[in-house]
């Protein structure tokens, strides 16, 4: 896999089918699926429970806004990921272009997916710091690999944003 900036977009090329599939799973992975631990992390409380009024108002007015924001980000990413759809049996490596104006949506959706996976599997700090674990083994190993892979993409996007800001 190669990742670089080309013609005003971030280009991820030479994507093998496995990594392409992991990218395709971003929107699905970001979905809380009604799992309480994930819901709790993505929609965490804005204050200590003693601040009843703040928490109630938040639930009523802010949380729906956040849900819309997160959904909009995953939808944008989902649209971009259509570039990776095609003949699934083909082993030809694929290329994905992320337009500059979609960068924020990508950062958000990748973060949603990473947080949701971490909450779902309740990874320890030690596990989260293990960047060399093979994805082969269990669903848990694969999820940890996913978190690290998405983190790698996030890191690149952040550096790219930084470089752009320095240029302007």
């Amino acid at each position: 896999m190669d990742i670089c900036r080309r013609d005003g977009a971030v280009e991820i090329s030479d994507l093998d089918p496995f990594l392409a599939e992991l990218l395709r799973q971003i929107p699905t992975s970001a979905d809380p699926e009604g799992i309480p631990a994930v819901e709790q992390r993505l929609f965490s409380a804005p204050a200590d429970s003693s601040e009843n009024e703040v928490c109630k108002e938040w639930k009523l007015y802010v949380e729906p806004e956040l849900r819309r924001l997160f959904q909009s980000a995953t939808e944008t990413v989902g649209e971009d990921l259509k570039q990776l759809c095609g003949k699934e049996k083909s082993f030809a490596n694929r290329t994905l272009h992320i337009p500059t104006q979609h960068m924020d949506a990508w950062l958000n959706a990748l973060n949603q997916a990473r947080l949701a996976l971490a909450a779902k599997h309740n990874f320890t700090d030690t596990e989260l710091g293990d960047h060399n674990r093979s994805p082969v083994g269990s669903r848990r190993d694969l999820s940890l690999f996913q978190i690290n892979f998405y983190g790698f993409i996030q890191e690149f996007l952040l550096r790219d944003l930084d470089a752009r800001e320095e240029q302007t």
Partner: protein
Amino acid sequence: MSGERRRGRATAVRGNAGSTLYEPILALDQTTGPATIERPATETETESEEELDLPWLVVVHNDPVNLMTYVTMVFQRVFGYPREKAERHMLEVHQNGRSVLWGGMRERAEFYVQQLHGHLLLATIEKSR
């Protein structure tokens, strides 16, 4: 007269939280007698009013999943902090488990917390004590 005193002390309490009004009001108490005698009872009386005026803090809590570079970027965007300041807060969160990013009026504090949640950071508002 007693009304004046109460208002005076209420402000003095607020002064303890950092207001510049503290000294002149303390001087007013000194002219009308030893302030230390009556102060405890009056402070209790005005506590709830004072609570309304307490500044609210925006606190960000540590999360081992969020990338350090990401957290720094969010602080820069949400608060308009320069990179060095944003990094300082990010490291404080990382090392101490939390960092106070901002303090002030409740409405503004809630706005900041909403922005931080929009970027999926663990953030809360707290009353300053």
